[in-house]
């Protein structure tokens, strides 16, 4: 075994280990998130894999769930447009949170926030994936079971995110909740800025295009 391949193997083992650590984190959030960032028990690679799994879960939920629970109109269904909101919201959360917590004595770096948030999504994957299969075993009358579990997953994720904020930034619970609310407000501001920016760009482009047309019309 060459040194290089041994190194590659080590990296792979580390990745798998950090990925497996997500299972520890969701049941021991306080220890888990502390060690995740401070003891290097997690990795950004694993976080990215978790994020990809979240997207995969969503895609499978839309495409493979029983029609009693999801009935997309396939003629108008665009997978990319369905996925993008999740990715955009996730990255905006990280950026907005990082921007705010640096002003609020947060200890976390952007990478750590990314990692912790992604790890907090683990219950979503673990519960929603099997629910895709289970949805095919349920009738309309039994659909409340489905919704109980999917809501449970969401609540669990939210609580984990709060724990992650507390541990990553070394906050108290109240401050974590407060900073999370501020983060959501920050996300809205970002969206507003993006929309405004784009409309301004479009308008200025339109101005130059009409200017060009006018000039071309006068010259020829």
């Amino acid at each position, binding site marked *: 075994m060459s040194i290089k391949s041994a190194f590659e193997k080590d990296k792979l083992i580390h990745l798998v280990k950090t990925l497996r650590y997500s299972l520890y984190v969701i049941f021991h959030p306080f220890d888990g998130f502390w060690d995740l960032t401070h003891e290097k028990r997690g990795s950004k690679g694993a976080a990215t894999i978790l994020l990809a799994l979240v997207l995969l879960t969503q895609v499978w939920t839309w495409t493979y769930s029983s029609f009693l629970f999801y009935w997309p*109109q396939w003629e108008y269904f665009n997978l990319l447009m369905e996925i993008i909101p999740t990715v955009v919201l996730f990255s905006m959360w990280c950026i907005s949170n990082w921007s705010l917590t640096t002003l609020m004595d947060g200890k976390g770096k952007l990478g750590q926030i990314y990692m912790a948030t992604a790890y907090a999504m683990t219950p979503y994957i673990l519960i929603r994936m099997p629910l895709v299969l289970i949805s095919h075993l349920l*009738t309309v009358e039994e659909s409340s079971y489905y919704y109980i579990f999917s809501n449970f997953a969401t609540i669990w994720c939210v609580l984990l995110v709060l724990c992650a904020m507390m541990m990553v930034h070394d906050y108290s619970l109240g401050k974590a909740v407060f900073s999370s609310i501020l983060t959501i407000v920050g996300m809205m501001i970002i969206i507003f800025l993006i929309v405004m920016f784009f409309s301004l760009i479009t308008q200025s482009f339109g101005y130059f295009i009409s200017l060009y047309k006018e000039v071309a019309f006068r010259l020829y």
Partner: protein
Amino acid sequence: MTKLKRIITCILLMALTAVPVTVASANSSFYTYNYDFYDVQMESPDAYTPEALLLGSSLGIGDFKDPGAVFVRGNTIYIVDSGNNRIVEVDSNFNLIRVIDKVTIDGAESTFLNPKDIFVNEANELFICDSDNYRVLHVDYDLKLIKMYTKPEDDTFSAEQNFIPLKCAVDNTGRLYLLAANVNKGFLEFDKSGNFSQYIGANKVKVSLFEVIQKRLMTKAQRARMELFVPTEYSNLCIDIDNFIYSTTTTFDAGDLFNGLAAPIRRLNSLGEDILIRNGYEPPIGELWWDTGGDVSGPSRFEDITAMDNDTYYALDRIRGRVFSYDFQGNLLYVFGGLGNKFGYFQYPVSIDHMGTDLLILDNRAASLTRMTLTEYGSLINSGLKEYKEGRYEESADYWRQLIQMNGNYDLAYIGIGRALLRQERFGEAMEYFKAKKDFDNYSKAFAEYRKEWVEANVGYLVAGILALLLLPKLIRFIKKVVKGEVFK
């Protein structure tokens, strides 16, 4: 470099999934169509085709002028020719029987002034809304007055308020239901002897917070003036075969249509409660795609309604000149018609009635009466519905199967076949049909049975599988021990 390449490939692959799917664009140029589960217009074969057109001039009595209503009793058609102050009676082949322009009251003749509606009961007695004479005339077939309905002596009618009857209907016990102008408490109900008894079907008053504040801030004079602008609540009514009143309303907020606050079509019982069944994909509100153009915009406004003997009802939308047909469960059967000058299109349709399965539609602006007849497609739907309603699902499925040959987009047909299969305990096939048309409840019924059958058939495998799952780890541990030689220590 390779990383960059990978990223580019990745982006390209994602872009592939993003290729927009071209969908047939929304258009309302179909003559007959239906709405599917997703509220998308689906073209369908014609259920009704125009057969004959009646003009006043073709009867040799001069053109109709501002005709207001059409009514059918037996094989006789009554056309209320409001502008000419007369009522024209024709037979089913559009031959003139007589022109009614006056009645005999105590030996003296009395003419009409702007009559708006007519109702004829089983005994061929006529009820005429003689609107601008402020009276409803009840006359026998020879036009001799039996009784007259005038302004009720009731506290709700102020002295200066005129009694302007607009639409009337009489049930088989002789009660007269009347829609009068400037009355917003519902229909006026008169008993058999001609006395006013009560209002029926009044709208529940909804007052928003804004209106409460607004009223508080207004002066007394302003408030008094505002009460004058109360719109007439109903636009028309008809009595169905079971003596219930089908009514239509045109005054509502478009936004209330989908949350159930506004009900443009109602079926009222004798207490004035709405008992219309609304089990369709959407409640019976008419148009779902509110395309805009010219004078056309917003939701449907039903001007008239007629209830068939098989409990289907046909509502006439004056906005887009279309007829909306619903079955007894509130499923949309088909929509047909449109605005235009061609045969089968309307300019300003105001009244609809039926003769057998034929429909008669009165166009106010074109001053014409159009007779529409049922096609083979339409009669298949009727036959299927009839069997279905009486619970003979197998027989109805035969009709539905024929119907699918003519229109593969007809949701009711699929659900009807599914119901028949469900009855025959062919649950798997039934599920396919229900799934195709997103019938959640029936699918669940079929699926529950299917699941039960499946579990009963495979209970052995299930138990074996669970046992295997429980025992396998133990077995593996045991084998490991054997291999390591720990067992014999």
